[in-house]
C-alpha cells in the first residue's frame, strides 16, 4: 500500500466515521434520555438525504436550505413518532422497540415504492481536490469530516447549557426533575426532535458525496448500533471515537481483504466487548424493567 492510497483510505474512513458519529450521537441521545431504542434512526437519515435532494434538485434552492429543511422535517417526523406511537407503548421496552421497528419499515417501504431502488445523485456542492505531492484529497470528503467534527463539538457544548442539564436531570429521575420545575414532557419532545434532526442533517451532508438510495437506512443503522455498543451507550465522546475507529477499519479492511471486511469488523469488535463490556468510554446501560 503506497502513501497516496493510504491517505485516500484514511480520508474515506474518517468521512464515513464522521457521518456515523453524527447519526450515532442522535441515537445515543434518545436512548440515554428516554430509554427508547429508536430503530427508525437509519430511515430518518435516508429521508433526510431525500429531503435535501428534493429541495436542491427539484426546487433549485441553495444547499444550506436543503440542510435546514432536512433538519426540520426529520425533527417533526421524530416528534410525530414519539407523540403518536411511542407514548402509548411505555408498557415495556420490547413493545417500544417493535413499534419503532414497524415505523421504520413503513418509512423504508414507502421510500422504496416512491423513489425506486436506484441511486439519486445530486450535483457536487464542493468541487476540486487538494494535491500535496502524490497525495490527493477530495474537498467534499474533507468537508464531510470537518462538518462531522463541528456538529459533535456543537452538540457537546449545547448539552452543557440549561436544556442539556434538564435532559440529564430527567434521565436521572423524572419525578424529582418534575419537582424542580422541569417539564419532562417538553424535554422528551425536544430530545426526540434533536436526535432525529441530527440523523436528518447527516443525510443532508452525505447526499452530494455518495448520493441517496431508498434502502441505505438499514446499513447505516447496523453500523451506528456497532458504534454505540463499542463506544459505550450514552457516551458522546465514546460514540465519536468508536465511529472513527469503525469508519477506518471499514475503509482499510475493504482495501486490504475485500469482501471479508465485515466479518473482520465483527471479530475486531468482539474482544473489545469481551474485555470492556461497557464499551470503550462508557458503562453498561440497563434495560428498564
Amino acid at each position, binding site marked *: 500500500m503506497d502513501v497516496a492510497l493510504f491517505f485516500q483510505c484514511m480520508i474515506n474512513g474518517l468521512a464515513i466515521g464522521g457521518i456515523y458519529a453524527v447519526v450515532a450521537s442522535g441515537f445515543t441521545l434518545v436512548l440515554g434520555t428516554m430509554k427508547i431504542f429508536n430503530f427508525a434512526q437509519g430511515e430518518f437519515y435516508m429521508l433526510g438525504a431525500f429531503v435535501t435532494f428534493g429541495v436542491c434538485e427539484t426546487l433549485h434552492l441553495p444547499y444550506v436550505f436543503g440542510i435546514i429543511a432536512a433538519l426540520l422535517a426529520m425533527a417533526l417526523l421524530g416528534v410525530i413518532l414519539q407523540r403518536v406511537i411511542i407514548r*402509548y407503548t411505555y408498557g415495556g421496552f420490547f413493545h417500544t422497540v417493535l413499534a419503532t421497528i414497524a415505523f421504520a419499515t413503513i418509512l423504508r417501504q414507502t421510500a422504496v415504492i416512491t423513489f425506486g431502488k436506484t441511486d439519486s445523485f445530486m450535483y457536487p456542492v464542493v468541487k476540486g481536490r487538494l494535491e500535496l505531492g502524490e497525495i490527493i484529497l477530495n474537498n467534499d470528503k474533507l468537508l464531510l469530516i470537518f462538518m462531522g467534527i463541528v456538529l459533535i463539538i456543537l452538540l457537546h457544548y449545547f448539552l452543557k447549557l440549561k436544556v442539556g442539564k434538564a435532559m440529564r436531570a430527567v434521565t436521572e429521575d423524572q419525578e424529582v426533575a418534575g419537582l424542580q420545575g422541569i417539564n419532562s414532557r417538553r424535554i422528551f419532545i425536544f430530545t426526540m426532535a434533536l436526535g432525529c434532526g441530527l440523523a436528518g442533517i447527516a443525510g443532508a451532508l452525505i447526499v452530494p458525496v455518495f448520493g441517496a438510495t431508498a434502502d441505505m437506512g438499514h446499513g447505516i443503522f447496523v453500523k451506528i*448500533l456497532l458504534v454505540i455498543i463499542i463506544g459505550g451507550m450514552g457516551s458522546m465522546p465514546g460514540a465519536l471515537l468508536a465511529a472513527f475507529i469503525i469508519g477506518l477499519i471499514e475503509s482499510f479492511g475493504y482495501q486490504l481483504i475485500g469482501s471479508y471486511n*465485515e*466479518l473482520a469488523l465483527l471479530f475486531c469488535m*468482539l474482544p473489545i*466487548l469481551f474485555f470492556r463490556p461497557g464499551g470503550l468510554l462508557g458503562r453498561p446501560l440497563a434495560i428498564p424493567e
Partner: protein
Amino acid sequence: MKAGNKIPFMTIALILLLLLPFIIRSNYILHLIIYVAIYSILGMGFSMMWKNRLISCGQAGFFAVGAYTSTLLVTRTDLSFWWTLPLSGIASAFFAFIIFSAALRAGPLVFFGMSLVSSFIIMEVLGTVEFFGGWEGILDIPSASIGSFFFYGKISNYYFVMILLILNIVVFYALYKSRIGRAWTAIGSSVSLAEAQGINVYRYRLAASTIACFFAGVVGAFYAQYQNLLVPNSFSFQLSIYVQMYALLGGLSHFIAGPIIGAGIMVFLPEYLRVANEYQPIYFSILIILIVIFLPGGILSIPQRVPWLAGKFGKKKEESVMVNE
C-alpha cells in the same frame, strides 16, 4: 391445567397432525404449513431468550448459518445430509456462543444490538464472499434421502418438519420444567432477585441463547434441502422481525403455544387477503403498531381480557400476569 388433563388433548392433536396431509390434499396449503412449522421453531427460540428477558433480533442470521453449513457440507464434501443436520445446529450454536459470550457480559441491551449486527453481517458475508455463492445464491441443493427414497414432495417434507417441530416442543417443554427452566423464570421475573438466589445469570442466559440458536441451525438445514436453493436475501433482517412478530402476536407469556399460533395466523392471513407483495410490509407494520398499543399480551391474552371468558380460565390469569411484565 394439570399435566394429566393434557394427555387426551395431545393425543388428538398428534393424530390430527399425522392425518393432515390426507385430509387437506392441497400441496399449496401443505407448503404453507411447512413454513408455519419452520417459523414456529424460530419463534420458540426467540421465546426462550425472551423468557430470560433477552430480545434477539438475529434469529434469521443463525438460521442462515445452519442452512449454509448443511448445504456446503452436502455439496462440497460427500457427507450425508443426516450427518449435517446436527452439525449445522452445532455450527450455529458455536457461532452464537462466541458472539453472545462477549455480548452478554454487557447486558441485555448490547445482546439485542449484537444479535442484530451479527445477523446483518452474516447476511452481508454470505452475499459478498464468492465461496458462499454470492448474492445469486446456491442452486440445485440435493434433497435429503433415505436409501432410494427422496424427501422431494410436500407430504414427506411435512412429516420431516413435524418430527423436528415435535422434537423441538418436547425438548423445550422438558427444559422449561427442569431446574434450568425454573432458573430462567426467576431471571425473567427479576434479575437482581435471581442473582441473590445464587443463579449465575450470565451462564443461564448464554445457555438459553445457545440452545435457541442450535434449533434455529437445525431447522435451517431442513429449509435448505426443502427449498433446494438458498439466497442470502431471504435471511434478511425482515425475517428476524417477522419471527419477533409471531411471538408477540401469539402472546409473549406463552413460550411454546404463542409462536405457533402467531406464525399460523401470520402465514395464512396474507395468503387469503391477497395483499400485493410490495405493500405487505406496510400492512404488517401497521398491524404490529396496533397490536403493541391495543393488545400487548397477544392473542392468547384475549381470554383474560374478556370478562365472561376470564371465569373459565381464571386459574391461568394469575400465572401469566406475573410472567407478563
